[in-house]
């Protein structure tokens, strides 16, 4: 028997699952506290967050806490490891595309006029992080957005912390980015939206280790004067990506790695198949026309459904 609880956090749904119902309150308390700390450090929409301070003072050194330091370090590493595909310095591009406030407010807006933006390529390579002095300096004119990595990093951390505190297995989901820890096998449904019902159709897989993430351009969308835009910015154009995939799900050794790979795969287009195969990452790619491709040992749909 598994016990789960969910609540709103970081503009999405946070969920924690543990085998024993008696552990649920404790697990939720740990997750909730960690997410509040993450929001104070890494939110792009809170004017009082450390990340907002770093963005406001681009070009100057800014003292930050350990959590934001870790998040920026992970984001820059993601950019390096994907040759800049998963780029944390696209904050200004997201704003120009219309994602300049919480998604609820973006969706409530009638339309948005796409703003011109000059994107400095490989700005991520000039992000300076001094861990000893806890100081970050981003290039002048650059804005950080940690959306592709911070949530997944938080899921990994929370899962590890809860598993250690409870001496139990645990599953943590932050908007569909899932991390598991401890000994256990977790059945998970794959869907286009993380808030889809548990009992819907489609593949169901079991995850015993690491993380699972799904990236899509079909959920976080909004209206603009040039048609619909979405949150996945292509660093090569500085604009919302045009990709042949509507959804990519990836399992990896951590939720962070899974999320990085899913995002990179979306941006790589057809080249994603070879990229994922070379890394032995079990992946499920859904093309815009609905065709499904499995890579790296992802179980066949008929078996999983």
């Amino acid at each position, binding site marked *: 028997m598994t016990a*789960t609880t969910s609540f709103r956090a970081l503009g999405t749904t946070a969920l924690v699952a543990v085998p024993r119902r008696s552990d649920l309150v404790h697990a939720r308390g740990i997750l909730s506290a960690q997410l509040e700390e993450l929001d104070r450090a890494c939110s792009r929409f809170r004017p009082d967050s450390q990340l907002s301070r770093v963005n406001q003072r681009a070009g100057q050194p800014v003292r930050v806490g350990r959590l934001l330091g870790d998040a920026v370090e992970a984001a820059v590493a993601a950019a390096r490891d994907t040759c800049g595909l998963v780029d944390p310095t696209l904050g200004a591009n997201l704003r120009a595309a219309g994602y300049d406030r919480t998604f609820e407010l973006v969706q409530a807006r009638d339309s948005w006029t796409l703003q011109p933006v000059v994107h400095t390529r490989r700005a991520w390579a*000039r992000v300076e992080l001094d861990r000893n002095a806890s100081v970050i300096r981003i290039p002048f004119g650059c804005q950080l957005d940690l959306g592709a990595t911070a949530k997944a990093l938080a899921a990994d951390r929370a899962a590890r912390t809860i598993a250690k505190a409870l001496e139990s297995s645990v599953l943590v989901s932050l908007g*569909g980015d899932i991390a598991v820890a401890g000994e256990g096998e977790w059945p998970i449904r*794959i869907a286009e939206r*993380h808030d889809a019902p548990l009992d819907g159709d489609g593949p169901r897989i*079991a995850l015993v280790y*690491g993380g699972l993430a799904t990236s899509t351009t079909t959920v976080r969308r909004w209206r603009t004067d040039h048609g619909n835009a979405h949150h996945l910015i292509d660093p090569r154009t500085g604009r919302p990506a045009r990709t042949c995939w509507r959804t990519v799900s990836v399992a990896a050794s951590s939720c962070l790695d899974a999320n990085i*790979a899913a995002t990179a795969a979306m941006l790589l287009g057809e080249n994603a198949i070879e990229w994922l195969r070379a890394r*032995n990452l079990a992946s499920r790619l859904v093309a815009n026309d609905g065709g499904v491709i499995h890579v790296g040992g992802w179980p066949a749909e008929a078996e*999983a459904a």
Partner: protein
Amino acid sequence: MRNESPVAIRDRASRRVRRLTALAVGGATALTAAFSGIAAGSTHTKTHAKTAPAPTPTATTKKTVTAPVPSLTPNGSSATPQSQTQTQQPTQVTPSPQAPVAVSGGS
């Protein structure tokens, strides 16, 4: 005007050369120490993001013993200078007949 012997002239010149040599060595030592101090003071322990030299995407990964799930590093890649993980096994994602406890999807 007193006539000095060639020996006395030689000795005086020799002393002058020794004095100048000592001054030059002392000056060089002092300058070396000063510049070393300045250089040491201007260097911080920094993590600085560098442009990736490798043409192929690579990843820094944690070495794991029990993990059945691989990280981002490509198999057999020669461009993995920071990677600790060598050969990776395919991910063990299996079909599950059980009722799911969570949904992985976009948000």
